[in-house]
């Protein structure tokens, strides 16, 4: 069940670039938000376990890491033209696209190292990978995401 859910996510992640071509702006925003929301949920849970805010469970950590890693590649495909309305995504994304893409790729790359770190059993390594991923998320938020209101 869990394996098939993750496999479905993998499929979705793999299909994302092709799908985005025909998706209207409203749905692009909806999809990227959905991906971010589930990433946030899993990444927060993973971080809470590593920070001893709740008991560490390796299976749970691996599932969290897998989901974050798989979903991380989805949002990039859904920042098409016209997706800057009714969103906290700043217009600078489309005027500084190369920098935005570089930061997005950095996040995908760091998140991609989470599954191996979660499986390694090396808590220090996992903690460091979480920190690097966190920093990669923040780099984009600082420049390209409007503050909460």
């Amino acid at each position, binding site marked *: 069940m869990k394996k098939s859910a993750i496999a479905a996510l993998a499929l979705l992640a793999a299909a994302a670039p092709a799908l985005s071509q025909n998706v209207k702006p409203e749905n692009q925003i909806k999809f990227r938000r959905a991906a971010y929301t589930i990433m*946030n949920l899993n990444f927060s849970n993973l*971080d809470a376990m590593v920070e001893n805010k709740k008991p560490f469970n390796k299976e749970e950590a691996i599932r969290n890491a897998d989901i974050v890693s798989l979903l991380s590649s989805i949002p990039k495909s859904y920042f098409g033209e016209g997706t800057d309305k009714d969103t906290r995504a700043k217009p600078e994304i489309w005027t500084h696209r190369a920098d935005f893409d570089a930061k997005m790729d950095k996040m995908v790359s760091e998140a991609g190292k989470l599954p191996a770190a979660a499986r390694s059993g090396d808590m220090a390594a996992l903690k460091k990978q979480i920190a690097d991923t966190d920093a990669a998320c923040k780099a984009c938020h600082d420049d390209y995401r409007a503050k909460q209101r």
Partner: protein
Amino acid sequence: MTAAPARIRVWDLPTRIFHWTLAALVVFSFTTGKIGGGWMSWHLKSGYAILALLLFRLAWGVVGSSTSRFTGFLRGPVAFFRYAAGLVPKRHRPVIGHNPMGGWMVLFLLLILLAQAGSGLFSDDEIATQGPLAEKVSNAVVAKMSSFHDFNGWIIAVAAGVHVLVIAYYVFGLKDNLVKPMWSGWRAVDAGVEQPPMRAAWLAAILLALAAAGVYWLVVVYPKG
């Protein structure tokens, strides 16, 4: 015949430890908050420590040594403006304890720091870190708190900067070194100036322990319930 200069204890040990620990933690909190990443767990711990220190200071402002009490250093507008008018070299007359202007700055700093530590408890950085009470309130409140926490951090940075600049003006412009007394507790005065009554440090230790226990309950025990 001029009286020989003497010295008095102007700041008790608890107030001095509070001041310098708070200063260090505020710099640490600001920096870790801006860097983020793996520093966020330290940012939260630093915030809890600041909250405990502030609660202690509020209590010490009521029952502490005379120079640390709010009723002693929060003065009315007449004293405020009379003191302000004398803030030029040669006319400046040193004050024992917080002066009529500085006293209000103390209260202002305490309040914006309290608001910062308090709002942090309900904040969410939307990456991996949530304040311990963020799950206890609606997301509308979390968004407001997070936004305020971010903005107020800059207010604190500016206020702290102003504080340091003013102290520098006292040292270099008014030739009144306020840093040394805050470090050592002693201030040179003319003979005959009375020693303000000081409270025992053990009372402060008890108050700080109570404040720390309260914060521990708020950020560790209560969220799990």
